[in-house]
């Protein structure tokens, strides 16, 4: 019976099930007295590494952030568990149009992910491809910088903020899409 259950949840989930499960995380964390948000952990790591000694922005009571460190460490462990025990039988079912388009850019799906899961294009982003390495550094930097400037990322704004009907979050999410569309349609094809 346990094996049957594991087989069941190892299938890719329907978007409605996934969305409901994410809403469940929001409720759980709200009930636990915290607001669901991941990017603040980056500020926490800076503070933990001593950035608060020289820069006021990073002065925070790390005891109040312990829960968030635990949460993101949990996320890493969740990834380990998911890939070890709940692996989908097939790579992610990406639409044929996207697969064809990416193929034209030299990103072959699903072979571009060396794990054949359809999660990450390691053929582009890897330690021996200098272009990919630079893009990884640039992309990560923009995410970290933008998230802090905007006081939140997808979890804080697109999920939590919108659920609290915050117009500030809506405008930030519109920004996510402006940047995302420019990158996907104009810049990314030039980079690869």
């Amino acid at each position: 019976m346990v094996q049957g259950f594991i087989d069941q949840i190892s299938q890719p989930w329907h978007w409605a099930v996934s969305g409901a499960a994410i809403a469940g995380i929001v409720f759980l964390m709200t009930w636990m007295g915290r607001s669901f948000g991941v990017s603040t952990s980056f500020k926490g790591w800076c503070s933990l590494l001593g950035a608060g000694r020289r820069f006021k922005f990073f002065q925070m009571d790390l005891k109040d952030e312990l829960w968030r460190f635990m949460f993101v460490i949990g996320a890493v462990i969740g990834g380990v568990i998911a890939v070890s025990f709940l692996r989908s039988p097939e790579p992610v079912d990406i639409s044929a149009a996207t697969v064809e388009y990416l193929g034209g850019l030299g990103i072959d799906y699903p072979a571009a992910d060396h794990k054949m899961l359809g999660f990450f294009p390691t053929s582009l982003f890897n330690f021996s491809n200098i272009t990919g390495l630079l893009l990884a550094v640039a992309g990560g930097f923009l995410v970290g910088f933008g998230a802090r400037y905007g006081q939140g990322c997808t979890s804080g704004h697109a999920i939590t903020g919108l659920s609290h009907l915050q117009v500030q979050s809506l405008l930030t999410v519109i920004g996510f899409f402006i940047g995302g569309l420019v990158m996907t349609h104009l810049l990314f094809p030039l980079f690869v």
Partner: protein
Amino acid sequence: MRNFAFLIVGILFGIILTKSEAISWFRIHEMFRFESFHMYGIIGTAVVLGALGLLLMKRSRVKTLDGNEVSYKGMQYNLTRHVLAGSIFGLGWALVGSCPGPMYILVGHGYWIVLVILLSAIVGTFVYGVFGQKLPH
């Protein structure tokens, strides 16, 4: 004890985002190309149910574990800031195909290159903390 409970919530989050495929770079690319409903379905469902649930929690005055009612401290309104910051984030999100949550989860999956992305995001946060005050707030 509660901090430990958040480890469990984090584990659930990692599993949910993996099975939802929201951690997939390809899903994000597909979303920004409007070639699948998948990601819109996930975010839409989460927000609609989230909004209803939070409204219910506020209306019913349910107490959190701290004994407080559910409330939300919104940030100060500044149109330029919201759109500009969002756009910077969006450029990065679409490029590396992962926002902060999935970065941690993908590392758990053993995609070691994502550690570079994660470290760079922490550097980006640091640079904002040092120089960011000069931007419109």
